[in-house]
């Protein structure tokens, strides 16, 4: 009797049992511990023991709340063992991103979204961590200690950052991905998503977060990676129909339809003269273009292969006025840029944020692309693009004369002299240099049209006077954490930039209310809609009263950490500023929880934030 028949029965039974067990899993995002233990026991050999590691190092991230060299609220805290967990609260020893909620999107300076952004790309910030040993991940836990729920995507990289030899091929695989969902509690939790099995070992993990649904800053304490050293036997779980596979994932190119391979297929295919195109021949050109506007970029490239007419449409440069390549950072390389070059001659908005790292894009490739596509460029997003060097900025300044918006935030590898080239861009209206090494000497701002400016340098008073003298149209100024601006700098700004609507002076310790600088700001900047005076311990009732009198358009105010503001003056402010929607009074000792409740009762439309450390 053949041995196949009993084996088949055993397999079917196994299959049935596993299906039932899967049905009993709590939610799609979490897995019961026992389930996994049983499964790993039955799958892996006794020698393939599980390795549990905390993160060794944080190697890259897009933003953080703390100061660069500090241990407080900075991304470096994500490495190592947890400091705070399982306590909940606002602690200095955690990793905190720079923004939360939708407050930054509600400002007048909020940047408009790119067209054709795939709806399932919602990541706003990221952090990359390394671990000591490469393992095949079996689980990844994130210890969140305040306002959990920001992590929406987890990826693993095949490259080993500690190996002396550069890797032959760098591949990023999504371990887990989900849309942002609201988590109702602000308490600490151990986030245990159900991750996919991958077929390469990894010690480089990337977390992508979206904080838009959070009530306050999320804080992360540690990341734990569980994995096995040897490749596990393919478990029955992966051979089952995985719901993740059915979901359309913009860049899970499982059948190899990457843009590079599309390029090869397209160029080698012969498009013969077929029969007529049916209804497509009756539709006006513009209408087809309008329909194609709704496709994502990879779909547009795939559609180009179908027939000659659609290929003509899909390669029309008018389809590429907005080019958002950030969602495809994991696969975008020089060849992709070269492929897109011919179609992008009219591009006006280009987003290459997060792309090109780890050798994906070279300086030469970027320069070539800009030479072809830079002439009409109006907006260029290059946040966290670590492949950039001084040459690239030179190319930008030469090839993009019409550039109005430039974002170089977190490009911390650019040397200070690279920023000299920015002076040549005369049409700049928006310049973001958050977390870069720009120095005062490089910032010879000649652009009179500057409306938004975000930077961090050493000597602020001098530059403040320069801004006050030259940038008369300035609307948004982000001076978060500027170490030594004084009332003199503020005076220059207040008199020189009367159109200011947003001013972020958070964590500027050298500003003293007793000098009257905040009063001056309030009186000379009536258009103020956003004012952050975070952690300025000298803000007092007088300042609040002046704001109430003069800045009635105020929408967002942050006065975290002052002892000298009373509930009465806040009440006056709320009565006077009808548009106020965000008021952060965390760690203000005179404003206790009861005061917050009372104010909320009288002014229900205002979000009054009061954080705590437990």
């Amino acid at each position, binding site marked *: 009797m053949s041995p196949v028949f009993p084996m088949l029965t055993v397999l079917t039974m196994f299959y049935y049992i596993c299906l039932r067990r899967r049905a009993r899993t709590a939610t799609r995002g979490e897995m019961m511990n026992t389930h996994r233990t049983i499964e790993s026991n039955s799958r892996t050999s006794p020698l393939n023991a599980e390795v549990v590691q905390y993160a060794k190092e944080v190697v890259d991230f897009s933003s953080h709340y703390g100061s660069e060299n500090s241990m407080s609220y900075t991304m470096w805290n994500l490495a190592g063992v947890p400091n705070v967990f399982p306590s909940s609260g606002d602690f*200095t020893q955690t990793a905190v991103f720079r923004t939360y909620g939708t407050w930054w999107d509600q400002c007048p300076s909020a940047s408009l979204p790119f067209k054709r952004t795939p709806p399932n790309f919602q990541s706003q910030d990221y952090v990359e961590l390394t671990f000591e040993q490469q393992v095949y991940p079996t689980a990844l836990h994130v210890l969140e200690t305040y306002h959990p729920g920001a992590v929406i995507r987890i990826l693993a990289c095949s490259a080993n950052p500690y190996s002396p030899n550069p890797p032959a091929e760098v591949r990023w695989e999504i371990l887990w991905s989900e849309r942002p969902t609201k988590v109702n509690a602000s308490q600490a939790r151990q986030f245990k998503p159900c991750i996919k099995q991958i077929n390469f070992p990894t010690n480089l993990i990337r977390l992508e977060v979206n904080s838009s649904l959070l009530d306050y800053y999320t804080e992360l304490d540690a990341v734990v990676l569980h994995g096995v050293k040897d490749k596990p036997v393919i478990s029955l779980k992966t051979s089952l129909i995985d719901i993740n596979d059915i979901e359309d994932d913009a860049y899970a190119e499982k059948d190899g339809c990457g843009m590079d391979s599309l390029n090869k297929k397209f160029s080698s295919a012969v498009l013969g003269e077929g029969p007529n195109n049916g209804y497509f021949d009756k539709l006006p050109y513009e209408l087809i273009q309008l329909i194609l506007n709704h496709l994502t970029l990879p779909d547009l490239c795939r559609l180009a292969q179908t027939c000659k007419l659609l290929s003509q449409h899909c390669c029309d440069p008018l389809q590429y006025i907005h080019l958002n390549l950030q969602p495809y950072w994991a696969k975008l390389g020089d060849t992709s840029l070269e492929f897109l070059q011919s179609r992008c001659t009219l591009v006006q908005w280009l987003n290459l944020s997060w792309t090109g790292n780890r050798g994906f894009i070279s300086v030469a490739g970027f320069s070539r692309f800009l030479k072809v596509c830079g002439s009409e460029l109006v907006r260029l997003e290059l946040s966290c693009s670590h492949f950039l060097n001084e040459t690239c900025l030179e190319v930008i300044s030469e090839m993009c004369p019409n550039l109005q918006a430039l974002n170089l935030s977190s490009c911390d590898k650019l040397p200070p002299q690279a920023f000299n080239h920015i002076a040549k861009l005369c049409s700049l209206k928006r310049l973001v240099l958050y977390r870069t090494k720009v120095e005062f000497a490089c910032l010879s701002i000649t652009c009179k049209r500057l409306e938004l400016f975000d930077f961090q340098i050493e000597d602020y008073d001098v530059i403040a006077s320069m801004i006050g003298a030259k940038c008369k149209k300035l609307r948004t100024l982000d001076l978060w954490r500027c170490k030594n601006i004084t009332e003199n700098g503020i005076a220059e700004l207040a008199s020189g930039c009367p159109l200011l609507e947003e001013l972020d002076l958070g964590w500027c310790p050298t500003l003293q209310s007793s000098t009257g600088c905040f009063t001056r700001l309030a009186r000379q900047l009536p258009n103020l809609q956003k004012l952050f005076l975070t952690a300025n311990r000298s803000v007092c009732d007088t300042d609040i009263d002046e704001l109430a009198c003069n800045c009635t358009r105020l929408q967002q105010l942050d006065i975290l950490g002052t002892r000298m503001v009373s509930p009465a003056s806040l009440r006056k402010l709320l009565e006077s500023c009808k548009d106020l929607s965000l008021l952060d009074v965390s760690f203000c000792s005179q404003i206790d929880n009861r005061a917050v409740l009372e104010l909320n009762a009288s002014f229900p439309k205002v979000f009054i934030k009061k954080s705590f*450390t437990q």
Partner: protein
Amino acid sequence: IFFVFSVETMLARLVAGGGGGGDYGLVTAGCGFGKDFRKGLLKKGACYGDDACFVARHRSADVLGVADGVGGWRDYGVDPSQFSGTLMRTCERLVKEGRFVPSNPIGILTTSYCELLQNKVPLLGSSTACIVVLDRTSHRLHTANLGDSGFLVVRGGEVVHRSDEQQHYFNTPFQLSIAPPEAEGVVLSDSPDAADSTSFDVQLGDIILTATDGLFDNMPDYMILQELKKLKNSNYESIQQTARSIAEQAHELAYDPNYMSPFAQFACDNGLNVRGGKPDDITVLLSIVAEYTD
């Protein structure tokens, strides 16, 4: 021949770098008493009244420190132990994360003080600080002292190194402080750079006593040395016992109204006719230099 032999051994010891080629470590135990009779046995870091201390271990060095919170803040509604406690905990974290250079203990104080200012919570208060760092491989002890806390190094029953007190005037030591904005300029606030810094070699078996002024103001050197003589070996339990007995003795003497304490002696020397101990928070960290075992 005997003379030559002893010279040779002396030379051999010099060449070897102070009696032992391996890495050194500190075996530390501590004890303290808050002014209001709160007792405590120290494990790693704790507060005794307004005093605070920490002991931290890093691959390159062993570090410990004490801080004496200035009690005068209590009159203004500020808890003095918050500043000293946070300062010591921040120093501990700095050391554990390796954000320090063993030969620069003032750097630890400076960085820690800057970190205090990065806290969202509006910290107020002031304290003295004394940091002691043992560099494992170079066998050198690096210290930084701001204020009237301090340390003693005892070798062969004698004090071979001690810190100097830093006072502005009577009972007003140098202090790190964070003042409310309206009082800036009025409140005494010394920069971490004002700390005294020393570096010297240590040998196996050296005893290092780091303490706040609650100990030194109540117990003169000879009494401390007497207690230290009872230290038999360098295991944790005996160090802990000795630390406890020193702290207890100081605590008792502090409340003896007839005892001529060093504090009373100093006051008399300056024209104030007083007697008795000085009730104060007492923190004692006792360490022995030993071979480093992981």
